[in-house]
């Protein structure tokens, strides 16, 4: 009896374990092994014969030296300020604009036209940052760019866009919203379309104005989605979109004060200065803060509104 139970158990679970196996192996190698790799942040990493694991073991412990090195440099302040600052602006402008766009699109009476608009707004979302960087270049290039041509034809002086930091906070916010707005607008629009139409009808009968309908019906329905998306973005507030900050400014040195973020800093530290210990420390710092932030926001949301929390 017991034996057949066991047999049954194995027959039941074995195929499922086999199915999980490739994914689990992948997670172990590409996600969990690097997690153990973070001990490098506390070591003076050097290559030793016998491969990566043995190098990791043989490298000398240095405690928090790598972190001290990072925070004693002026870079730490700049990259953290840029990363958090841009992300905050992206979250605020992105959420407000996409909710507003979704509500407006929903009100449009020409539905066919609205579909066409949605399709073309969605287009930038499907492009890589490399492609977008060329699009931006076609407008901002100092000798061939369309904007400088326009400035010249208006009798104004050309601007060297890729060397002047003061324009870039604006440009990056614009470009980022341009790429993502179509996507997030359609996302919110889908939620608005799922609202029961009878709410609006009864509100109309009670004499509610359009603004009142938006304020008391549409927005409350979008609230859980806005909260969920905001929690997720706050959890990632210490991680910048590498492609945006690396490709769009064309790696222009003079722009680094306003375009260098944690992710580009780590990449450059790894590739150009080969400082493995310090770049790992920076990455770990980023991951730990991200983890704490997502736990904290989720905890707060859970306290306020249990259904909106993500886990």
């Amino acid at each position, binding site marked *: 009896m017991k034996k057949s139970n066991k047999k049954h*158990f194995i027959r039941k*679970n074995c195929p499922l*374990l086999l*199915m*999980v196996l*490739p*994914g*689990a192996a*992948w*997670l172990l190698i*590409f*996600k*969990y*092994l690097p*997690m153990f*790799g973070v001990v490098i942040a506390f070591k003076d990493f050097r290559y030793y014969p016998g491969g*990566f*694991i043995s190098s990791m073991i043989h490298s000398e412990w240095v405690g928090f030296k790598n972190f001290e090195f990072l925070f004693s440099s002026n870079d730490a302040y700049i990259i953290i300020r840029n990363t958090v600052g841009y992300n905050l602006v992206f979250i605020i402008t992105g959420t407000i604009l996409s909710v507003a766009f979704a509500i*407006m699109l929903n009100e*449009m*009476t020409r539905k066919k*036209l609205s579909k066409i*608009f949605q*399709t*073309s*707004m*969605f*287009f930038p979302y499907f*492009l*890589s*940052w*490399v*492609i977008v960087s*060329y699009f931006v270049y*076609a*407008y901002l*290039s100092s000798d061939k760019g*369309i904007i400088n*041509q326009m400035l010249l034809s208006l009798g104004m002086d050309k601007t060297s866009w890729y060397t002047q930091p003061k324009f870039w906070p604006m440009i990056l916010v614009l470009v980022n919203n*341009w790429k993502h707005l179509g*996507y997030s607008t*359609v*996302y919110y629009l*889908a*939620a608005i379309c799922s609202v029961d139409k009878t709410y*609006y009808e009864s509100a109309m009968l009670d004499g509610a104005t359009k603004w009142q309908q938006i304020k008391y019906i549409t927005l409350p329905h979008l609230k859980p989605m806005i909260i*969920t998306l905001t929690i997720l973005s706050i959890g990632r507030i210490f991680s910048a979109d590498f492609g945006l900050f690396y*490709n769009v400014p*064309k790696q222009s040195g003079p722009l680094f004060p306003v375009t260098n973020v944690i992710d580009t800093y*780590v*990449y450059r530290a790894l590739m150009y200065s080969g400082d*493995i210990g310090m*770049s*790992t420390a*920076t*990455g770990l710092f980023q*991951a*730990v803060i991200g*983890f704490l932030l997502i736990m904290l926001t989720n905890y707060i949301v859970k306290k306020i509104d249990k259904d909106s929390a*993500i886990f």
Partner: protein
Amino acid sequence: MIKKTKRSFHSINKGPDIIITIFFAIFALSCILPFLTVIMSSLTDETTLIKNGYSLFPKHMSLKAYTYIFDQGQQIIKSFGVSVFITIIGTAISVMMTAFYAYALSRPKFRYKKFFNYMAFFTMLFGGGLVPTYLVVTHVVGLKDSIWALILPMALNVFFIIVMRTFFKSSVPDSIIEAAQIDGAGEFMTFFKIVLPISLPSVATISLFTTLGYWNDWFNALLYIDSAHITPLQYLLMQIDRNMQFLIQNASDMGMGAGEASNQLPAETVKMAIVVISTIPIACAYPFFQKYFIQGLTVGAVKE
């Protein structure tokens, strides 16, 4: 009789409607205008482009950039091939792995469901970061300058596992699976013959997102790829930009004098032509798949 446009009783007034329509017309246009500019620039005569700059309405048009790519742009054609290869193989591997994993998690009878669920979910909250990942991929897995470095590091996306698991759970009734298994079908049989066909919309959505991810990827190439023969299109564009001489160098490697090559090479228009070539497949395909993408978005919004 005056024909009135039909307006439902809760639609907005005509004035704001027109303003909103015009506003979105402008915004929608701004979303495709840069691409049109790039297309027109790639069709501009090289000297005109250098003299007058990028333009939507170039003075002299020319197909030279494209004829150059087909005649002498071996590297570009090769890179196109690499992009196609990693996209097809990568999507196949990725979707298979995701669907298997998600299916196992969706089976209530699976003993270790919880464990594997947490194993996947935790990686969404915490990660080792770029440097340890780089070291593992290059030194442990040994993928430096291998085409698999473009495929394997992004072969699994935990978010897609969660979306697919939710979809399996909500759209495939447990009773069907039970019935099939009472009739003697194993888990693999049930998966391929019943679950996969029913869940085709969700699998299609995730395949599309994955395809797009592989086609657009340049980050893994930036980290791991050095050799020209395994450089995907997106990364080629970055290299050309970083080193304008890249194409000329390549031409001279193939036996042409450098001077000769640089005379012939319409560098600026060719760059724009490569941008067009790598964007056209997406631009042509996505309007047809858009509804799947939107469906995918709404599925993703459903949580357990």
